[in-house]
C-alpha cells in the first residue's frame, strides 16, 4: 500500500510541487487503494498529474485512451519535455512497422496513449492483453456518454475492452460532467461502484459577461475595442476557420496587438510556431476555433472572448477554462448577436446524420470516401450489429439532445439572473450565493468597467523583437555565438 507520504514525496521529487491541487490527492488515494475512480476536475486542475504520478510511483504501464491524435502527440511531447522518455502515442499516423515495433516493446514504456479505435483492433488488443497494465485511463471520459457533447461511438466498446484487458484499475477523467453524464459514464464502462471525485467546476476568478448586439458591424467594433483595451494575453473563439482568419487580420490591422489565427487547417509547423509564440508571450491574441486549447498550458490568459455562441454549455465552460489558470482575475465575454444561435444550431445538427442519410448509408457497404465521418459513424453501428431502426431511434434522440443542449446554452446567454448560478445549476453544483465573488457577472454589473477588475491593458503589447532582427543577429542568438 502506498502511503500519503510517498505521494507527497514523489510530488516533490518529480514535479517540484509541495501541495496537491484540489481533487488530485483524493483521486490518487482512491487509486492507490485500488478503487476505480471517476474524477471530474475542471480544465487546468491537473488531471494529467494524477496518472503521471501514479505511473511514476508504481512503475507500471499506464494506458491512456484519448480521443484526439493531436492531443495525444502533445501529451507525449509534454512528458518528453519533463524528462519522461518512455512515452508513446499509438496512432493511425504511424506506419505498420512502427506500430508493430511499439507493440512488441510494450514493456519498455511507462505511458502509452491510444485512441479507442486503435485499441479495439484485434492485433493491438491482444498485445495489451499479454501485458500487465497498471492503470487504464479513460481521458475525456464524457466522450463515452451519449449525453455528452463529444460523444464518440467507439468509446462504447471500452466497457467490453476493459474486461478483455483483465479488468485493470481504471481512472475515468473529465473536465465537465453533469450528474446524468457521470452516471452514464460509469454505466457504459460497467463500473457502477467507481469512486467519484468531483471538484466544483465554478471558476471564481473569471468574471462572466454576455453582451448583446443588433448588427454584426457593432459586434466587430466591440471586439476590436475589447481586444485593444483589455489586458493581454487573450483568446478569441470563433466557430469557423474563415472568420477566425478574417478577424485575426482585422485585429492585427486595427490594434497594436500581435495576433495570429489558430485552427485545424494550419500545417504543423505553423501550428507549432503560433503555440510557442503564445506560450513565450510573443503573441497577444489568438483567434481560434475549438481546435485550440487542447494541450496548451498557459497560466496567464486574461480574457476569453466568444465571437459565436458555442453549441452547448460544456464546450463553453471548457473553453473559458483557459482563462486565469494562475488564479488571477480574468474575464469571459460572450458576444451575442440576435440570430447567432442559428449558426450554432446548424453546426450542432450538421454532425448528427439525418433520417434519409442514415437510410442511405445503411444500404451501403464500407465507407467509400476516406474521412466521410457520417458514413463511418453509421458503418460503426452496422458493423456492431445494430438495426437501422435502432440507429434511427438513437440519432433521433441525439438530435433532440443537441437541440436541448443549445437551448441550455442560450439560457445562459439570456438569463437576467446570475450567470454563475446558472452554470452551477447546470452542473448540479449549486452553491450559496454568498460564496459568489464580489464582481460576479454581467447580470449584476452590466456596465462594469474592466478597470475595477484590474483588467485594462497598461503595458505595451508583446515585444516583437523577432521581426526586427536581421539574419546575422538571428544566427548569433540561435547558436549562442
Amino acid at each position: 500500500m502506498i502511503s500519503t507520504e510517498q505521494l507527497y514525496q514523489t510530488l516533490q521529487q518529480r514535479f517540484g510541487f509541495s501541495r496537491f491541487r484540489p481533487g488530485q490527492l483524493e483521486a490518487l488515494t482512491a487509486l492507490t487503494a485500488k478503487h476505480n475512480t471517476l474524477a471530474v476536475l475542471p480544465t487546468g486542475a491537473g488531471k494529467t498529474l494524477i496518472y503521471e504520478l501514479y505511473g511514476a510511483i508504481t512503475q507500471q504501464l499506464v494506458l491512456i485512451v484519448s480521443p484526439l491524435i493531436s492531443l495525444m502527440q502533445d501529451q507525449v511531447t509534454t512528458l518528453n519535455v519533463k524528462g519522461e522518455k518512455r512515452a508513446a502515442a499509438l496512432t493511425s499516423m504511424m506506419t505498420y512497422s512502427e506500430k508493430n515495433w511499439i507493440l512488441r516493446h510494450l514493456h519498455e514504456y511507462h505511458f502509452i496513449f491510444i485512441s479507442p479505435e486503435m485499441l479495439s483492433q484485434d492485433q493491438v488488443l491482444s498485445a495489451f492483453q499479454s501485458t500487465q497494465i497498471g492503470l487504464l485511463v479513460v481521458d475525456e471520459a464524457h466522450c463515452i456518454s451519449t449525453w455528452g457533447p463529444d460523444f464518440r461511438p467507439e468509446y462504447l466498446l471500452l466497457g467490453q475492452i476493459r474486461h478483455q484487458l483483465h479488468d485493470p484499475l481504471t481512472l475515468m477523467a473529465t473536465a465537465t460532467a453533469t450528474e446524468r453524464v457521470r452516471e452514464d459514464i460509469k454505466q457504459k464502462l460497467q463500473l457502477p461502484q467507481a469512486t467519484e471525485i468531483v471538484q466544483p467546476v465554478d471558476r471564481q476568478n473569471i468574471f462572466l459577461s454576455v453582451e448583446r448586439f443588433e448588427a454584426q458591424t457593432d459586434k466587430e467594433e466591440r471586439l476590436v475595442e475589447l481586444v485593444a483595451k483589455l489586458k493581454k494575453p487573450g483568446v478569441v473563439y470563433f466557430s469557423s476557420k474563415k472568420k477566425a482568419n478574417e478577424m485575426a487580420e482585422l485585429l492585427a490591422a486595427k490594434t497594436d496587438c500581435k495576433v495570429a489565427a489558430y485552427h485545424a487547417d494550419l500545417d504543423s509547423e505553423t501550428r507549432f510556431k503560433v503555440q510557442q509564440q503564445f506560450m513565450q508571450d510573443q503573441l497577444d491574441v489568438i483567434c481560434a476555433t475549438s481546435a485550440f486549447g487542447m494541450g496548451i498550458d498557459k497560466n496567464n490568459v486574461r480574457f476569453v472572448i466568444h465571437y459565436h455562441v458555442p453549441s452547448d454549455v460544456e464546450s463553453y465552460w471548457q473553453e473559458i477554462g483557459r482563462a486565469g489558470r494562475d488564479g488571477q482575475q480574468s474575464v469571459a465575454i460572450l458576444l451575442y448577436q440576435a440570430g447567432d444561435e442559428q449558426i450554432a444550431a446548424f453546426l450542432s445538427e450538421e454532425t448528427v446524420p439525418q433520417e434519409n442519410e442514415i437510410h442511405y448509408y445503411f444500404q451501403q457497404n464500407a465507407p467509400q470516401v476516406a474521412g466521410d465521418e457520417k458514413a463511418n459513424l453509421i458503418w460503426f453501428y452496422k458493423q456492431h450489429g445494430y438495426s437501422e431502426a435502432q440507429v434511427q431511434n438513437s440519432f433521433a434522440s441525439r438530435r433532440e439532445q443537441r437541440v436541448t443542449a443549445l437551448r441550455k446554452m442560450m439560457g445562459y446567454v439570456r438569463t437576467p439572473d446570475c450567470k454563475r448560478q446558472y452554470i452551477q445549476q447546470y452542473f448540479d453544483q449549486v452553491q450559496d450565493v454568498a460564496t459568489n465573488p464580489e464582481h460576479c457577472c454581467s447580470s449584476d454589473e452590466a456596465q462594469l468597467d474592466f478597470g475595477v477588475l484590474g483588467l485594462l491593458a497598461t503595458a505595451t503589447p508583446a515585444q516583437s523583437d523577432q521581426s526586427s532582427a536581421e539574419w546575422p543577429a538571428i544566427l548569433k542568438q540561435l547558436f549562442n555565438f
Partner: protein
Amino acid sequence: MDATQLMRFLSPTSPRRLRVIENILVGKRTVSTLYWGMRYHQLSWLGYEKKLSREVMDQAVHNLQTEGLVTVEQTNAQLTQQGAVEQQKLLQNSYQPQHLKIRLVVDVETFWQRLLLATQVVSEQSYQNRQYYPLQTSWQVKQTVKRWFRQFHGADLQTVFYNFWQDVFADLPSDQASFMSRLLVGHERPGDTLQQVSRDFQMSETEARLMEVDLICQLAKLVSQAANSSINALLAGLNHSLVSASANQTLRSFMAGESLEVISRKRSLKLSTVREHLLEAAIMLPLEQFDYQRILTPELVAQLESRLNGFPLDEWQFKQVEDLPVDFWQFRLLEILRSKKADDKH
C-alpha cells in the same frame, strides 16, 4: 493558388487546358497531363500544391475572368491583351522561382522538416538545454533526426550549423536571407510563421510560399553538395527518380533491349500500361536517356513528318496520320521528341 499565380501558367498566344494546369499542381502523373505540362513548361511544378481543390481553382479562374484578364472557352483559358500586360508585370515584379525542378528528384518537404528540426535541436544544444518543445513533425522525421543527433552530437554541431547558415545567408540576396532566417526555430525563438513573414515583406501568402519552397530547393541543392557529413546526412534517403518506380522498371527492361510484349508478359501489365510507362519516361527524362529510334524508325518518322511539317506542334492532330501504320502512342512519342528538340527547357 490564387488568381495571380494562375496567370503564370497561362499564355496570350494559345488557349491552355485548365485541367492540365490543375492536375500538374496536384501531382497527377497521367501521360496526357505530363505531356501538356511539358508543353506549358510547367513540369517543375508537378505536385507543388497537392491539396489544391477544384473550388479554389475555379475561384482563381473566375477572378481573372471578372477582371478581364482571361477568356475562357469550355475548360481552356487564354490571356487577353490586358492579361498579357499583367502577366509581364507579374514576371517583373514578383518572385521568380529558379530551382523548383529539384523537387522532382528530392523530397524537399521532408528535407525542410528535418533541417528545421535539426536546427532547433542544435540551437538548444548550444544552450545546453534539454527541456524544450520540439517542432511537431511526422514520426519518421522525428526518428531520423533523433538517430542523426545521436550519430553527430559530438561533432561540434553548434559551429557547423552556425557556419552553414552563415554561408547560406551570405550568398543570398539580403531580403531573401532575412526572409528565411525568420522562419528558423530554436532556443527561445519560436520562429515566424509564413503568414507573419509575408505580412512584413508585403507579399501575398502565395508568393511567400513560392519563395519559401524555391529557397528550400536551393538549400537542398547546396546541402547535397556540402562537404560536411553531418549536414549532408540530412538528405539521406530523400532522393527519388524522375519517373515513377513502376515506369522506371519498365524503362530499364526496355533499355536492356526487351520487347514491349515481353515486358508486358513478365510484369503482368497490359501492353497499354507498358506504353504509358515509356511515354512517361520519355517526357520526364533528358533526350539522350531514352531510345526513341527503337520505336520511331527513320522511315516512320519521315512518313509522319511529310504530313505534319508546316503545322505548329501544338496543332498536330492524330487524324492527320491515322491512315498510316502508326499507333497513337507512337504519334505522341514523336510529339515528345519534337518538343524536346525544339526546346528542352522543362
